[in-house]
């Protein structure tokens, strides 16, 4: 059905509107439902604040806290909490949970403490090492003193031996002086002396060898000790040097970093200054350039003005020449225009003549067209009249004449026709005076359907409403 066809343009619009409605609804639902998602805050805090014993502990809690902190910081160190603190620690845990935020700064402080402790430990170790070194130094000094004592003893021994020997020699010498006197005795004495000398030399050599051996032994012993001590010292020194070097390195690094920073800052300052100077230079240059440009422009303008003046003079000369030419041309033009006007006048006259002829021809044409139209109208009128006559004739044929109708009866009907020649309605406009005749004509109109109409549909407008007159005399 046609209604379905005419509902189609609405379908797209309706679909779009439906989608819009749903989109709006979902947006509403999404933003309406999502605001509930956020959880209530502060719930955890409320629960822990309500615990009992929170007010009792603050003074007692602190020592275990330190342990806890040490636990937290140094889990490796074994902590021996006092057994009596079990209750305290039991109380302490929830409180610690209740105050999680407070422990964090303490931890930071403890970290700082740890650093200090480490420094102190380093110092202690260094002091101990120094002590050890000093002790060893003292031991070494003692050993050296012993060594010297031993040498002194040896020297004493040697001195005693020498003294004994001298004494023996002195005892033996006096007879020696007597020798030249007593040759036999002197020989014997010489022999004895030689023997004594030999003995003395042997003894001295033995003593020397023994003393040398002892000295060498002691020396070797001492040397070993000293070497060992030196090694230890060297190692300690090396360690100390390593540490010192490490510290120096760290210090050097820090210094280097500080220096780098300082240098970086200096560089930055230098760069800033340099940039500032550059900017200043640039500005100065720019100003200088601007000035130079201004001057150049001024010069250029001067030159251009000079050129323009020259050009203007040239132009003035050229214009004068042109004016002269134009005057000549204008005169020539005037002559030419006069000629043209004369020609135009001639042409205008000719045109007027032609137009007049045309107007006459058009008037003739119009007249002919009007005649043709009139002829057409007349033809239409004729056709309409003809068909009207045909209609009337057809109706009249259907009138059943009755005997008592007056001769001069005259009835008028308004007849409305339909395109097929059917009669829509027929109204009696002027009754004839004889009701029998009127009804007879009306019946005849109905009987005469379909009434004859011209084949040209355009003419139907002339037949839509007809006023038909009927009288029995015709």
């Amino acid at each position, binding site marked *: 059905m046609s209604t379905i066809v005419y509902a189609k343009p609405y379908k797209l*619009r*309706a679909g779009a509107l439906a989608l819009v409605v749903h989109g709006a609804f979902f947006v509403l639902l*999404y933003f309406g439902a999502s605001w509930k998602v956020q959880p209530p805050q502060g*719930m955890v805090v409320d629960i822990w604040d309500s615990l009992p014993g929170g007010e009792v502990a603050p003074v007692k809690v602190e020592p275990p806290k330190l342990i806890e902190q040490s636990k937290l910081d140094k889990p490796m160190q074994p902590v021996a909490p006092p057994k009596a603190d079990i209750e305290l620690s039991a109380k302490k845990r929830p409180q610690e949970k209740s105050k999680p935020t407070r422990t964090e700064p303490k931890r930071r402080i403890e970290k700082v403490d740890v650093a200090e402790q480490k420094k102190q430990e380093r110092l202690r170790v260094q002091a101990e090492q120094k002590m050890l070194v000093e002790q060893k130094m003292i031991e070494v000094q003692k050993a050296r003193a012993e060594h010297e004592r031993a040498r002194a003893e040896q020297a004493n021994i040697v001195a005693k031996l020498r003294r004994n020997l001298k004494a023996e020699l002195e005892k033996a010498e006096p007879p020696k002086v007597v020798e030249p006197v007593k040759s036999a005795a002197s020989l014997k004495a010489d022999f004895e002396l030689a023997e004594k000398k030999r003995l003395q030399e042997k003894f001295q050599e033995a003593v020397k060898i023994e003393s040398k051996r002892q000295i060498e032994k002691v020396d070797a012993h001492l040397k070993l000790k000293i070497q060992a001590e030196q090694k230890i010292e060297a190692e300690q020194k090396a360690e100390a040097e390593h540490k010192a070097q490490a510290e120096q390195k760290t210090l050097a690094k820090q210094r280097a970093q500080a220096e780098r920073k300082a240098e970086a800052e200096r560089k930055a300052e230098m760069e800033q200054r340099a940039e500032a100077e550059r900017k200043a230079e640039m500005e100065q240059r720019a100003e200088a350039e601007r000035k130079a440009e201004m001057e150049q422009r001024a010069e250029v303008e001067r030159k251009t003005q000079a050129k323009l003046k020259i050009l203007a003079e040239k132009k003035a000369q050229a214009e004068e020449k042109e004016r002269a030419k134009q005057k000549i041309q204008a005169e020539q033009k005037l002559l030419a225009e006069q000629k043209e006007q004369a020609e135009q006048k001639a042409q205008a006259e000719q045109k007027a003549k032609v137009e007049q002829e045309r107007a006459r021809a058009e008037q003739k044409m119009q007249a002919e067209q009007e005649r043709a139209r009139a002829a057409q109208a007349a033809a239409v009128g004729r056709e309409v009249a003809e068909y009207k006559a045909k209609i009337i004739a057809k109706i009249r044929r259907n009138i059943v004449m009755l005997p008592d109708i007056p001769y001069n009866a005259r009835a008028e009907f308004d007849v409305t026709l339909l395109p097929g020649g059917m009669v829509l309605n027929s109204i009696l406009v002027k009754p004839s005076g004889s009701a029998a005749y009127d009804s007879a004509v009306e019946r005849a109109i109905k009987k005469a359907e379909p009434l004859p109409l011209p084949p040209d549909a355009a003419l139907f407008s002339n037949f839509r409403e007809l006023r038909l007159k009927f009288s029995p005399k015709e």
Partner: protein
Amino acid sequence: MDVTQDLSFIHLIQNASVLVQLVMGLLLLVSLMSWWFIFIKMFTVRQAVKQSEEFEESFWNNDDLNRLYQNTSVMRGDSGSMGRIFAAGFTEFLKLKKKHDMDNNAVMDGTRRAMRATYQREMDVLESHLAFLATVGSVSPYVGLFGTVWGIMNAFRGLSNVGQATLAHVAPGIAEALVATAMGLFAAIPAVVAYNRYSHDITRLASRFEIFMEEFSNVLQRQP
């Protein structure tokens, strides 16, 4: 279950079981269609009322039925339901009038039958989709309820697997399930409102057409 669980609308739909999701999809489709029909009906009924008013005005202000007939046959679609009823009746009247042996009553009966046929056709077109709106209005709450019941059943079945039953275990499932009911109601309420509104409008239009048919057949009967 965490307190901070996301209970937003999209999350609820995503977490729902497959059957509940199917129900929700069906309800969304039905809702879209019902809104589509609501808007189509809105435009068509409004247009039909406007066209019948215009035609009645031109009918009572114009004495010449023939000219009116020509106008309506030229206008064709734009004349509206009432114009089409008039055209059908008048053509039938002219056709029957051409046959000379027809009784006047028989002609009028034929004309009236033709007009009634056209009237029925027009009413059929006007009332189309109204049945769909009525069905959506009455059934979609039940469909949504079915989805809700199924979702709650699932929620409680999941609860049986947990030793300690808390509200947090059941609440999300029930919330998911209740989305289905919400969607069913969202589809149903506008459909019911639109059905009542348009059925009332169309009943008024129908009574108007019948009155016109009676008056027009009177006018035709007055014709000789």
